[in-house]
C-alpha cells in the first residue's frame, strides 16, 4: 500500500485562479465602501441624502456584511470547492451562534426593560 498524502489540490476540482481571487477582493472592497456610504447617508455627514433610512439601515447593513462573509468563506476559504464536510463543520456552529446571539439579545432586552439599573 503506497503512501497517500492528501494535498489541497486533489479535492478542488475547479481551483480558482488569482484573477478570480482578485475580482472577489474588489467586490469585497466595494461592499465595504457601500457599508460606509450607507452609514454616511443614514447617520453621518450626509444623513438624509436619500431620505430617512434609519429603519432599513440595520437590515441593509447586515445584508452587505453577510455577503462579504459568504464571499470570504466560499472563495477565500475554499468552501465552494472543497468537500461539503468542511461547510457543514463551519455552518452548523454558525447557526447555533446566530441563534444564541438573537436569543440573548431578546431575553436580555426584555429583562432590562423591567430591571432597575444601578441597584
Amino acid at each position, binding site marked *: 500500500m503506497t503512501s497517500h498524502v492528501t494535498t489541497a489540490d486533489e479535492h478542488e476540482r475547479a481551483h480558482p485562479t488569482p484573477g478570480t481571487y482578485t475580482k472577489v477582493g474588489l467586490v469585497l472592497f466595494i461592499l465595504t465602501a457601500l457599508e460606509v456610504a450607507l452609514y454616511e447617508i443614514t447617520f453621518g455627514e450626509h444623513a438624509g441624502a436619500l431620505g430617512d433610512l434609519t429603519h432599513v439601515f440595520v437590515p441593509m447593513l447586515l445584508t452587505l456584511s453577510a455577503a462579504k462573509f459568504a464571499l470570504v468563506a466560499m472563495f477565500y476559504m475554499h468552501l465552494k470547492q472543497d468537500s461539503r*464536510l468542511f461547510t457543514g463543520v463551519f455552518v452548523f*456552529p454558525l447557526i*447555533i451562534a446566530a*441563534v*444564541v446571539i438573537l436569543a*440573548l439579545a431578546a*431575553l*436580555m432586552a*426584555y*429583562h*432590562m426593560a*423591567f*430591571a432597575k*439599573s*444601578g*441597584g
Partner: protein
Amino acid sequence: MATTAVGHEALAAAPGEKTGLWSWITTVDHKRVAILYLIGATVFFFLGGIEALLIRIQLAKPDNNLVSPEFYNQLFTMHGTTMIFLAVMPMSQIFFNYIIPLMIGARDVAFPRLNAFGVWVFLLGGLFLNASFLFGAAPDAGWFGYANLTSKQFSPGMHVDFWMLGLQILGVSSLAAAVNFFVTIINLRAPGMRLMRMPMFVWMSFITMILLLLAFPVITVALILLMFDRFFGTHFFVPTGGGDPILWQHLFWIFGHPEVYILILPAFGIISEVLPVFSRKPLFGYAAMVFSGVFIAFLGFGVWSHHMFSTGMGPIADTFFSLATMLIAIPTGVKIFNWIGTIWGGSLQLKTPMLFALGFIAMFIMGGLSGVMHASPPADLQQTDTYFVVAHFHYVLFGGSIFGLVAGAYYWWPKMFGKVLDERLGKIHFWLQLIGFNLTFFPMHFVGLHGMPRRVYTYPKGLGFDSMNQWETVGAFILAAGFAVMLYNIWKTWRTAPPAPADPWNGATLEWSIPSPPQEWNFPEIPTVTGRDPLWEAKRQRGGTLPEPQRVSGQGIHMPAPSYWPLVTAFSLPLLFTGLMLASKIGPWGIFIGVATLFFGIYNWVFEPSYTSIPGVKGKGHH
C-alpha cells in the same frame, strides 16, 4: 507489514512496551493517556466523595456544627465542581481514549500529542483547583458561580479566582480532546466502517464532542467577563456600574445545559454496548438511537433557561423553554424504549456490567421523571432551590452517568488490564451501590418538597427534615462501602486473577478481537468491516468462535514517537493563570513566564518529527 506471531516471552522487552516513569511522562499512546485519566479521575472522585461524606455528616442532624458555614460552602462547591469536571468528565475520557480507537479499528487518535497535552492539562488543572484548599481558599460560591456573589465586592478572597481560573484551564483540556476525537471519529475509521456501522458508544461520543466544541467557548467567555470584573474593574455583572448578573446566568447555562448532556451521553453509549452483549441480541433500533442522540444534542442548546424559571423572564420565554424541555424528553424516551427492546427476548447474562446497566435504566428513568416535573415553570417555582432538585440531578448524574461509567469499567476492565474483575465482589458492590444510592437520594425528593432549601449548612429541628437526613447520611456511607469493595476487587484481581482472554464476554465490537491488553499498535492489520457488530459477524462466519489472537512483533508498523513537549506546553497554563492571580502582587512577570513557556512548548512541539518506523526506537530528534 510483517505479522509473524512471536512467543510471549520474547515480547516482554520488545521495543514499544516501555516501562518506567519517563515512558509515562512522554507517552502519546491513547491507552496510556486513558490510564492517566483513570488515575486522575479516581483520585478526584474520592476527593469529591469525601467532600460529600463531610456534607452528609454535617447534615445528619439538625443544628450541627461539625463544619463552619464558610467551610460548608467550600465543601458543596468543590463537591460539585470536582464531580463534574474532575470525575465524571475524565471518567468518560478514560473510555473515549482507550476504547474509541479500538472500536473504529485505528492505531491511535488523529493527534496523539494533542491527546497527551489534554490529559496533562486536566491533571494540572485539577491540582490547581484543589491547591486552593492549601490556602484555605477553596471555591465557595457554588459550582455554577452566580454573579454577583462572585464579584470582588462580595467574594473578596482568592476562592472565586481559583474556581474561575481552574475551570479555564480545564476548558482547554476539554476543547483539545473534543477537536481530537471529532477528527479521529470522522477520519480514522477502518475501511468499511461507515458512520451508520459505528458502535453506538462511538456515535454518542461523537455527539458529545460536538457539544463540547460548541458549549465550552461560551463558559470561556463567561469566565473571561468575570475575570475582567474581578481583576480589571469592569462591570459586566455589577449592577451599580450598568451591568447585569442575569447575563452570567444565561451565559453559564448556555454552556451548562449542553454540559449535562456531555455528562450523560457517553454513559448512554456505554449502556448501548453492554446491554446487547449481555442480552446476546443486537441493539434495538440503531438508527433511532443515532437520530435521538443527534436530536437531544441539537435541542440541548434550546432549553438552558429552564435553570432560570425563577428569574422573571416573562411568560413567552418561560413557555418556550418549558415546551423545549418537555420536548427533549421524547428522544430520551425513545432511547429507553430501545434499551428495553434490546433486552426483551434476550438471553440475559446477569454479570456485573449488566447489573449496573440495568440499574442505570431504572435510576435514569427516575431522574428523568423528576426532570420533566421541573419542566413546568409553576411546579419548578416550588421545586427550585430545594433538595428536590438535588434528588433529580443525582439520579441522572449518579444513577445515570456513574452507574453507566461503572458498568463500562467492569465491562472493559479485562481489555484494559488483562484481568476480569471478580464476579462475586462485583455483585456485592452493585447491591451496596444500588441500595446506598437510593437510600441517600430518594428521601431528598420528599425533604425538598417539604421545603428544605439547597446549600444550607444546617437546619433547625422539628421541620420534618431530621430523620430523612439521617437516612440519607447512612445511605451515603453504604455507597462509599460499595466503592471500597470495588477498590478491593481491583487490588485482589491484580494480584491473584488469571490473565484475561481477548474476548471474555462474547463481544460484538472490534476491541475484543485483539489481546487483553492490546499491544501498542492495537491491530496487527487494520481490519475491514462489513456491517454493525463486526465481531459477531466474524464469529458467525467461523462457526461461533474465533481463535485467541496472538501477540506479534510489530515490525514495520508506524507509530507516533513519544514526546515531552505536550507536558511542557501543558505546564504553561497553570503558570500563566497563577501569574494572573498574583499579578497585583508580582506584576506581569508570572504572565510573561506563562506565555513564554507556552510559545516555547508549542514551537518545539510543532517542529518535532512525529513518526518513526518501529515503536519506541530512538532516532534523530526524539527524546
